[in-house]
């Protein structure tokens, strides 16, 4: 069966877009083929800086013919119906229709419609221009004289040529003829921009790829990546060193060259006084080069590895010299930044935060840092950190944002803070906390263990969360511009992985109030700018704000219990935490119904306890006792809900011991009492396993009750009392979980 070759040849495509573009091209073309009834055998797409290419092999040469019978109106039916039938089927008269007899309904007209399949090459000529026109580049542009007209083609960069052929391996393939905004398809492409710029005539994928290789273009990015990494390792190894592997950089570089040539250069030993991260960031981000290290010590050596796009006539001497000069200048800049940073202590930079807006509704960075500091001091005893160290670390945690090195290399934020803190003689825990308070940065990142880092990390995230809740900027759907989901997950992991028992409802109140005060002040400042005091319309609003600020300030100072508005925000934030925790537990394989069963209990705001409960519950339900108790509870619940519906009432309230007629009733009542007491005590001691065992002891009494006792007794009073007893089973189990939420 024939194959398709498609190449879209353009000016340089941004490296970061190439892989997705190749994938999109394959998907769009093959989806269309399938939609046209053309099932292909295989497809592969490629991208280089200057071309997207696609090969689809084993496509049928034609679409299958389509035969369809369409049922029409009754013979002798209304004229309008017959006219409609002819029009819809394309028949010129009823003579062309067949008549079919139906024993029940009489005679009907039937149209036989035959749609011959089209030649695939014609289908391709129709679908490909549409795909080019609607290609989903993240950013696209117009160019040239045609851009003066409306409807001119948009592409990622100017598109110059389209190669498109279709045919059998054994024959000369045909050009799939189409044109997009003046660019006509053909079978001519071009080689490497500098080493083989001539036109190349291609027939099909096999000779296309081979001819490109002759013309110094490696089509497959995988192959370019392999060449780069192998040669780079080799070059480093030959000098007794090791390549600092960097897959992200490797991907990018593979998208910057069609013909990778790996070279090595030097820089001045003196630059090694800089922290290795600065050297790496300089060389990597600005110059897209790899750094090299000593395999034993892990320290950088004064070498770097660059990847050129040409085999230069002087074997790359000029290229190496040029790159060395640029890297020298860049490292000089970095050294200059680093040395000037060292002249100012971290704390002496903080005044600048007073004029830096964190969020227009939440005030300045300086206010935020004050909040984090106060919160960190409050959290410190809970996590076992020294209060003054936690304060100090919180105060300095963001100061490196104001240094020149971090200004230049934002990814060094945190790491530079720790470095500068160490250099200025801060306590070790304080210094580490600056970098570590950002951790975990993602699901795979580690969670800090040092108490000061934990305190600041929690304070930072909790402040962010309560702050955005205070100004009602919560994540919605897929929108989470302030990464609040990540912040919540960070809090969860910090608490759980450090086994920290924290009642969030209590902990959240103080920072929430603090944030509310700052939000209020920010609003007041805004109104002041609009001269609200002098404006009679705005003056009352201003006065109300000022009064409200005083009120929250007092609550903050005297630690008043949560007011309804505050409680509402906290409840909402808690349910956000609960959702994040559910996601997290589910990802770790916990049953979501067990998580729900625990969260359904009142006042669950200690995440560590929730998780412990879920674990204990899971184990319990795996045991026979657990399964049977669950079955018994479910049975009780089912009976109750039926009877409740019947009587339109609930059977709550304590059963009357005087109304027990059978031993099994009395035994169950006693067992419930005991289970409640024991489980309650165990829960108080956070011993969920014992609480579950206490529940398990209910089981024989429950089983016996259902065996021997008929709930719906003739005596209405006895029936009511028995239903109340069933309700007690349900109530007792709520000491550990809401069993009605558990499946199975």
């Amino acid at each position: 069966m024939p194959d398709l070759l498609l190449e879209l040849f353009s000016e340089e495509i941004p490296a970061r877009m190439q892989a997705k573009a190749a994938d999109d091209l394959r998907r769009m073309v093959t989806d269309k083929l399938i939609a046209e009834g053309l099932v292909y055998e295989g497809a592969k797409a490629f991208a280089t800086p200057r071309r997207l290419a696609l090969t689809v092999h084993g496509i049928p040469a034609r679409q299958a013919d389509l035969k369809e019978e369409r049922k029409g109106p009754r013979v002798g039916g209304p004229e309008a119906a017959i006219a409609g039938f002819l029009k819809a089927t394309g028949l010129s008269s009823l003579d062309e229709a067949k008549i079919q007899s139906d024993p029940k309904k009489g005679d009907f007209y039937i149209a036989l419609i035959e749609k011959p399949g089209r030649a695939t090459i014609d289908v391709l000529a129709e679908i490909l221009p549409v795909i080019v026109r609607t290609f989903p580049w993240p950013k696209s542009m117009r160019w040239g004289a045609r851009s003066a007209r409306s409807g001119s083609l948009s592409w990622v960069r100017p598109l110059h040529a389209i190669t498109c052929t279709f045919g059998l391996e054994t024959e000369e393939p045909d050009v799939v003829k189409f044109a997009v905004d003046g660019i006509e398809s053909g079978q001519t492409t071009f080689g490497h921009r500098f080493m083989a710029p001539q036109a190349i005539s291609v027939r099909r994928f096999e000779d296309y790829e081979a001819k490109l290789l002759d013309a110094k273009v490696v089509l497959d990015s995988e192959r370019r990546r392999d060449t780069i990494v192998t040669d780079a390792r080799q070059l480093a190894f030959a000098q007794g060193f090791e390549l600092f592997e960097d897959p992200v950089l490797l991907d990018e570089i593979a998208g910057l060259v069609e013909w990778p040539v790996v070279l090595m250069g030097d820089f001045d030993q003196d630059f090694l006084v800089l922290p290795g991260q600065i050297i790496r960031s300089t060389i990597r981000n600005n110059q897209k080069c790899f750094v090299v290290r000593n395999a034993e010590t892990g320290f950088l050596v004064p070498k770097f590895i660059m990847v050129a796009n040409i085999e230069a006539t002087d074997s790359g001497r000029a290229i190496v010299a040029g790159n060395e000069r640029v890297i020298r200048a860049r490292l000089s800049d970095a050294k200059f930044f680093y040395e000037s940073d060292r002249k100012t202590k971290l704390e002496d930079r903080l005044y600048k935060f007073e004029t830096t807006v964190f969020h227009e509704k939440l005030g300045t960075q300086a206010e935020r840092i004050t909040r984090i500091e106060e919160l960190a001091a409050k959290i410190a005893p809970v996590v076992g950190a020294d209060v003054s160290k936690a304060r100090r670390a919180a105060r300095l945690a963001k100061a490196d944002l104001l240094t020149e090195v971090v200004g230049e290399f934002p990814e060094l934020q945190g790491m530079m803070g720790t470095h500068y803190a160490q250099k200025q003689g801060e306590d070790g825990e304080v210094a580490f906390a600056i970098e570590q308070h950002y951790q975990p940065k993602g699901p795979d990142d580690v969670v800090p263990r040092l108490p000061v880092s934990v305190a600041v990390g929690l304070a930072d995230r909790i402040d962010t969360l309560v702050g955005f809740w205070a100004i009602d900027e919560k994540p919605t759907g897929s929108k989470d511009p302030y990464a609040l989901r990540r912040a919540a997950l960070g809090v969860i992991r910090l608490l759980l992985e450090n086994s920290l028992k924290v009642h969030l409802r209590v902990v959240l109140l103080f920072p929430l109030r603090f944030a509310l005060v700052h939000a209020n002040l920010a609003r007041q400042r805004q109104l002041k700018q609009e001269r609200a005091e002098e404006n009679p319309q705005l003056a009352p609003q201003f006065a109300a704000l000022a009064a409200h600020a005083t009120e929250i300030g007092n609550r903050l100072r005297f630690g008043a219990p949560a007011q309804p508005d505050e409680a509402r925000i906290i409840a909402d934030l808690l349910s956000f935490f609960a959702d994040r925790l559910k996601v997290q537990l589910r990802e770790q394989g916990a049953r979501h119904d067990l998580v729900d069963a625990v969260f359904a209990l009142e006042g669950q705001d200690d995440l560590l306890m929730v998780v412990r409960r879920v674990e204990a519950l899971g184990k319990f339900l795996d045991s026979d006792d657990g399964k049977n108790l669950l079955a018994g509870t479910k049975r009780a619940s089912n009976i109750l809900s039926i009877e409740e519906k019947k009587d339109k009432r609930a059977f709550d309230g304590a059963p009357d011991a005087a109304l027990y007629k059978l031993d099994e009733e009395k035994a169950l009542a006693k067992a419930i009492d005991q289970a409640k007491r024991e489980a309650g005590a165990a829960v108080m001691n956070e011993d969920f396993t014992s609480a579950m065992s206490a529940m398990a002891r209910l089981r024989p009494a429950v089983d016996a009750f259902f065996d021997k006792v008929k709930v719906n007794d003739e005596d209405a009073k006895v029936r009511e009392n028995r239903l109340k007893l069933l309700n007690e089973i349900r109530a007792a189990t709520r000491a550990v979980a809401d069993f009605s939420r558990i499946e199975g």
Partner: protein
Amino acid sequence: MDALPAHMRPERSFQGLILTLQRYWADYGCVILQPYDMEVGAGTFHPATTLRALGPKPWNAAYVQPSRRPKDGRYGENPNRLQHYYQFQVILKPSPPDIQELYLKSLAAIGIDSRLHDIRFVEDDWESPTLGAWGLGWECWCDGMEVSQFTYFQQVAGVECAPVSGELTYGLERLACYLQGVDSIMELNFNGREGAEKVSYRDVFLQAEQEYSRHNFEVADTAMLFEQFKMAEQACRKYLEAGWRDGSKRREHLMALPAYDQCIKASHAFNLLDARGVISVTERQSYILRVRELAKACGEAWVHTETGRAN
């Protein structure tokens, strides 16, 4: 190029580099303009680019533009950063299909041999929030050094470009450092002569860098600059309003260029205020927005002038 005397060669002489580029683009058919006589932050601000990029009429021009970035001053001490430097600017409207080749040939003209050097087009999308302009293109790298910016203008002064222009901006000092093989801009040979006759970039500009850095960071009269900003803004609006020949019908404009000068003035006053550190982050946004509004109004006026409109 062999015909050039040694002191005129781009790899020996800063002015030789400028002259070679001018000659190359003159040969192509560009109008060779002189620098705009106002303080601007980049060659793009020259009305020969900003305004001429608008409207359908073809336009090919090249010029050197002294560019002032008050914040980038380092008292002449940083080898690569200056508050005043030169850009060589080329604008081709509409962008010709072989514009990349034209650019590469210009590099060859100044002595960069593409068989010897690694020339790369690396993604760099350009946006000027103050000009209400954006485009897609690249930074052009030579052996890892950015030597030019290459942009296909999509929108300028809030107006869609139809047709699109291609803009090339050569950072002359950096390019010259590369060609002359020196590490610091101040070391550049300016006139290409040797010995007693040699004039270096330091001889020409070091004192200016020191004086202007002092001025920009420490002394520039902020009260005056705030006032200048306001006055330029008002004047711009006034000229724009007065320039409509037919009053409220707004069909033809007669004073887009003088109005645009005031927009440039406001922009420079803002840059100086920014360097003096008297504009907070929030205010900064609003100043940028105010300049953009002026630029957009000027663009709107321009497309109603003789040169800016369709016929």
